[in-house]
């Protein structure tokens, strides 16, 4: 042996070992069922909830109307320029994940993540069609024959059906669901609907049916981020080695010289694990903390008459305490720590700000663009005219009549481009249709005597009930007159 001898490194590529988790029942499994049912029901059912917004807006409770650039969520309607609400919600979701992760570890991964939910669903399909773990292992090892081919084809078509019905349902968030449903089956829906359904059906089929735990272990960034987020007070699924080791079956325990630990090495925790890991090796990236091994271990312990919780949710701090023999801390003490309070304060603060903004936002807005080419028009009688392009946004689901006027612009008369100049007057009324933007080309004429560059405001007052006027500062352009300064001096 010398320095040039081979350094044998393990290959970077590890072939996947298929996971066939065994069926298990227990409190965590039942909780997982509940979360899956709620998640899928909310996801699937939401687009079908109706919400009456009157004749001018869609009647779907939750709708992302990309074509008309509107986002509806029950009583809330968001316009593109109000997209910061969605950004705020996303920030809340992010900080919420921090909060949850710090408190209860990877609860998102274990229960609510779509990848987990769909993988769980597909693993149930496997058990229904191929039988439980052992049957699946046998079938997997069996050579490809007609029987296996038929079984596989059947199972994959069930995969595909579920993928189509669940993944494909995403499109209903983007159009009126019943109408789109009808259009979809009669072949008259927009091509993008078919494309989206196709893509989402495929990704659901592939990620849920075949990629499974590999998504969590290799593809998803969240487990990696969480390693930085977890601390010694976060709940993680823990094999209590100080209680379980040295492990050994009951038979081995009988023959042992020194008493063995509680772990009877039945490997049930490994058999039920959806990501195929051995939790007894300690915390690891593959553990999504779904706690199915807790259920399995509790059953095993019950069958041999030992106390439950050999594998259990536990923080690192409490693990240390248990090793020393001191009892675990109360849940409140673990939760009420500065880090969690800070996260919660930030999370709740953003939520309150969003709520306040939602309550205080204007549903009628006005923006004014002063015409720059030409800045002003000299009229034959000496009067000066300016042009403005107004955008009146009526975000309510009813048409509104607005009275436009120029404020602090003496002797001004206004008219629009579809009116005759002789009809110019102090104020004009425009009707803005429900839930839309009206663009108005407004002309303001100021007689020669009063025409000088000055600031003023355009004001739009609703003539119907309930609504503050909206005003926008702008300026009136006119040629500088030599006499102006003298006038001012005289006035003084």
């Amino acid at each position: 042996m010398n320095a040039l001898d081979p350094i044998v490194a393990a290959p970077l590529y590890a072939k996947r070992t298929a996971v066939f988790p065994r069926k298990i029942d227990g409190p965590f499994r039942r909780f997982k069922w509940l979360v899956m049912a709620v998640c899928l029901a909310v996801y699937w059912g939401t687009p079908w909830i109706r919400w009456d917004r009157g004749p001018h807006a869609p009647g779907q409770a939750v709708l992302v109307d990309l074509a008309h650039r509107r986002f509806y969520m029950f009583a809330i309607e968001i316009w593109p320029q109000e997209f910061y609400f969605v950004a705020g919600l996303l920030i809340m979701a992010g900080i919420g994940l921090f909060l949850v992760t710090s408190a209860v570890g990877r609860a998102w991964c274990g229960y609510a993540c779509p990848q987990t939910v769909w993988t769980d669903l597909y693993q149930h399909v496997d058990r229904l069609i191929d039988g439980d773990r052992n049957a699946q292992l046998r079938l997997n090892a069996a050579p490809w024959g007609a029987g296996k081919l038929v079984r596989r084809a059947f199972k994959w078509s069930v995969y595909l059906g579920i993928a189509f019905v669940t993944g494909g349902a995403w499109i209903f968030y983007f159009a009126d669901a019943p109408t789109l449903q009808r259009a979809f089956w009669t072949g008259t829906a927009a091509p993008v609907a078919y494309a989206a359904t196709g893509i989402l059906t495929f990704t659901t089929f592939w990620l849920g049916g075949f990629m499974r735990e590999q998504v969590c272990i290799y593809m998803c960034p969240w487990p990696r981020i969480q390693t930085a987020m977890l601390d010694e007070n976060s709940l993680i699924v823990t094999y209590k080695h100080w209680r379980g080791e040295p492990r050994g079956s009951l038979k081995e325990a009988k023959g042992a010289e020194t008493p063995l630990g509680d772990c009877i090495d039945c490997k049930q925790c490994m058999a039920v694990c959806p990501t195929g890991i051995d939790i007894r090796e300690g915390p690891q990236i593959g553990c999504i903390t779904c706690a199915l091994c807790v259920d399995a271990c509790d059953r095993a312990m019950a069958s041999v008459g030992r106390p439950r919780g050999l594998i259990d949710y536990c923080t690192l701090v409490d693990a240390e305490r248990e090793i020393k023999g001191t009892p675990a801390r109360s849940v409140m003490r673990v939760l009420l720590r500065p880090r969690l309070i800070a996260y919660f304060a930030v999370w709740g603060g953003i939520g309150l700000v969003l709520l306040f903004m939602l309550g205080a936002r204007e549903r009628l807005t006005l923006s004014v663009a002063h015409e720059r080419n030409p800045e002003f028009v000299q009229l034959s009688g000496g009067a000066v005219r300016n042009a403005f392009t107004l955008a009146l946004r009526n975000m309510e689901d009813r048409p509104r009549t607005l009275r436009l006027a120029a404020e602090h612009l003496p002797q001004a008369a206004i008219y629009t481009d579809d009116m005759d100049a002789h009809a110019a007057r102090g104020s004009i009324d425009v009707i803005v249709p429900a839930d839309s933007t009206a663009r108005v080309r407004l002309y303001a004429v100021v007689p020669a005597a009063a025409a000088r560059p000055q600031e003023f405001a355009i004001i739009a007052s609703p003539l119907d009930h309930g609504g503050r006027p909206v005003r926008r500062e702008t300026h009136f352009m006119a040629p500088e007159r030599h006499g102006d300064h003298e006038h001012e001096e005289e006035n003084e």
Partner: protein
Amino acid sequence: MTHEKDAPHGGGKVIDHATGTAKVGHEWDGIEELDTPLPRWWLWTFYATIVFALVYVVLYPAIPMLHSASTGTLGWTSRGALAEEMTQEQAEHRAVRAAIAAAPIEALAANPALQRAAIEGGRAAFKVNCVQCHGAGAAGAKGYPNLNDDDWLWGGDLNTIQQTLINGIRQPGNDATRVSQMPSFGRDGILTAAQVQDVVSHVRVLSKQDPASAAPARGAELFANNCAVCHGAIGEGNRAVGAPKINDKIWLYGGDRASLTETVTNAHGGVMPAWGGRLDPVTIKMLAVYVHSLGGGEAAPAPAPAAPATGAAQ
């Protein structure tokens, strides 16, 4: 080959001890190369791009030749694609253009949606055909009328604007074009240089730029004899002959002494092309509606009952 002694019999691969990777079998001065082939997927992607390129060359224009390129079996051309897009665009606009064509120009205002479409269509056409002289904001320039204001040489109602667009102003070879010509009073010796100055002084008084004095008083008579026939006794202008108002604040060629002297001496007469033969009637109609909407548009003049009688008398 020095390393042949390493090679197993039968020409199998030589494995590098340090890395466990096969060698390619070359050796240069003791330096050997490891055999690390391209990943299969990369290679197949590469072959696929070659196949794609071959198919592309057959289907699409690809091979440059002296005067053109190979045509490709699909017959695709970028010009053809553009033409198709244009046809599609026109097809989309067909209905609204037909509606605009069918409506008399004064009646468009009764249909706000149609009027809005006409204004926007006119705005687009204006940017292509009119901005060269009248400016992007239609504010004109010296010699090119500002279309935003309320001062019209030939009239500012919809029909008159449309008429001007179709036949132009002083457009040679167009029988229906609007024509008039101001005499070059100075250059042609109708007025002496001093008289021109007197007339200019009077015009400055008429337009309230200067107070009355001796020179304008002399100019008043000259004005009455030479100018009033077109520009009116008090300089109110005459749209029938396109004679500008000269008692207002708007000057096409400038209202200062130098500009007025130049105008009276040499005269001006701007030319606008006749667009009737160049643009389709719907585009011209939309342009008229757009120009009318710029703020200075006038209502159609009330039918003057005296007008036919005057015509008959002449």
